[in-house]
């Protein structure tokens, strides 16, 4: 059994009477990619926010790279990173300036070379000196990915990482992320509505609905368990509460 890079135990987040995350537990082994799937309000972003220390849970325990994220998050934040459509980079700063600021925040050596390399990998070289706010949605998504990878994180949390990308660019980004994980041994947690993407890049999938985990397994296993053709069909079954008796774990 691989050592867990992320370990979530009995995680609960309540806002008054509303339970956003309800007794969620899962592990993500090092060097693997876990997909966090669910409809709107399923609790994916809440879970990711807690993993990053942006949100305090009502109860439960979260360990990242062996550190309790609630008690010692600054011991590991430098080894993590994330990208989310809910958070943007300053629009007036150029791509290079934004990456420079975050490179300094993460204490990186040889920053200029790192930025050039990332820009080349993510096809951002023509836009490096352009204001981030003037880029297209797809270009901004690639800049967000570049920021998420600036410190070569050991744990990468991605919320809809290929949103707004055209199929060709999305494919390149997915390939890059998979190569990155294989090359560095990084662990990736991916929240996405893009089922083909999840099928392709995730080793394991956690299905969430109304704050709870309703199923878990590798994409192929889930598809077989539900007797469906695609993960999207499985997702729809779960989102619409059409789980079959045999599929209920």
């Amino acid at each position: 059994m691989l050592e867990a890079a992320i370990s979530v135990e009995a995680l609960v987040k309540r806002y008054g009477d509303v339970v956003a995350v309800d007794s969620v537990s899962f592990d993500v082994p090092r060097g693997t990619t876990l997909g966090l799937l669910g409809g709107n309000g399923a609790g994916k972003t809440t879970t990711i926010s807690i993993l990053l220390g942006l949100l305090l849970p009502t109860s439960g325990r979260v360990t990242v790279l062996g550190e309790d994220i609630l008690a010692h998050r600054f011991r590991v934040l430098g080894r993590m990173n994330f990208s989310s459509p809910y958070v943007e980079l300053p629009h007036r700063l150029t791509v290079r300036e934004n990456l420079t600021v975050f490179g300094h925040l993460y204490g990186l050596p040889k920053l200029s070379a790192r930025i050039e390399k990332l820009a080349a990998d993510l096809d951002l070289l023509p836009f490096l000196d352009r204001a981030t706010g003037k880029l297209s949605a797809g270009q901004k998504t690639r800049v967000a990915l570049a920021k998420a990878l600036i410190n070569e994180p050991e744990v990468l949390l991605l919320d809809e990482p290929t949103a707004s990308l055209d199929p060709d660019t999305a494919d390149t980004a997915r390939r890059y992320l998979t190569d990155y994980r294989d090359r560095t041994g990084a662990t990736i947690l991916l929240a996405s509505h893009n089922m083909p993407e999840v099928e392709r890049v995730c080793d394991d999938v956690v299905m969430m609905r109304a704050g709870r985990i309703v199923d878990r397994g590798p994409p192929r296993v889930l598809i077989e368990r539900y007797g469906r053709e695609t993960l999207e069909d499985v997702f729809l079954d779960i989102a619409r509460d059409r789980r079959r008796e045999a599929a209920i774990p």
Partner: protein
Amino acid sequence: MTAEAIASARRILAIVLRHFYLYRSSWPRVVELVYWPTMQMALWGFITLFLITKSSWIAQAAGVLLSAVLLWDVLFRGQLGLSLSFLEEMWSRNLGHLFVSPLRPAEFVAALVLASLIRTVIGVGGASILAYAMFDYSILSLGLPLIAFFLNLIVFGWSIGLMVSGLILRHGQGAESLAWAAIFLIQPVSGVYYPIDVLPEVLQAVSKGLPSSYVFEGMRAVVIDGVFRSDFLAYAAGLNLVYLAIGAASFVAHLRLARNRGLILQIGE
């Protein structure tokens, strides 16, 4: 210097660099830095020129109103500089990125303080140079006490800026007008342009709880009587320690509340 101290300094300077990049790309922001201090200084400079012929109090100390307006701007720009630097992060929806980086809250506050100091020096410095050019008045004529006045006022401004930033973090951009408005709550009771003994007794009591009152009284003592009141300085410094502790505690408490309620990712209107 330890490796951790160097890393911490680098993170603080990274945020200052972020604001430098912002100002480099936005000339309206640069103009705004000096625009209001200059307008205020010009207004009170001309009022002084008029009152010199009408008031013996002004005539014996022509610099008292210009000193007041420039020192008031140290307080106002100090507070606004900190709150605006914080608001810039909110407007750009960048707080989530910052708070998941290794940047500690104390480093973030230190960066806001440093950005505010730079903005204040540019804004008030520019107005002071123009005051010399237009009215032959130099703020440096206050002598060494100017350093004490400046430090006390800017620290008080930072304390208020931290409280305001915490409230904006808690209530979202709907509360951003506090960044401009909050400081004016204390202006009437700080005795900026008049001695505090003209205030009603109840407001004089309030005034005695503000570091700014002692600074402006101290400034008038220097300009009018040629006396440096070290007791005023001591009161101001002591009160500043209290307000700075309250400001920092308030910001940390609001940050924790924002983390508890999930406000950092949702920050907006």
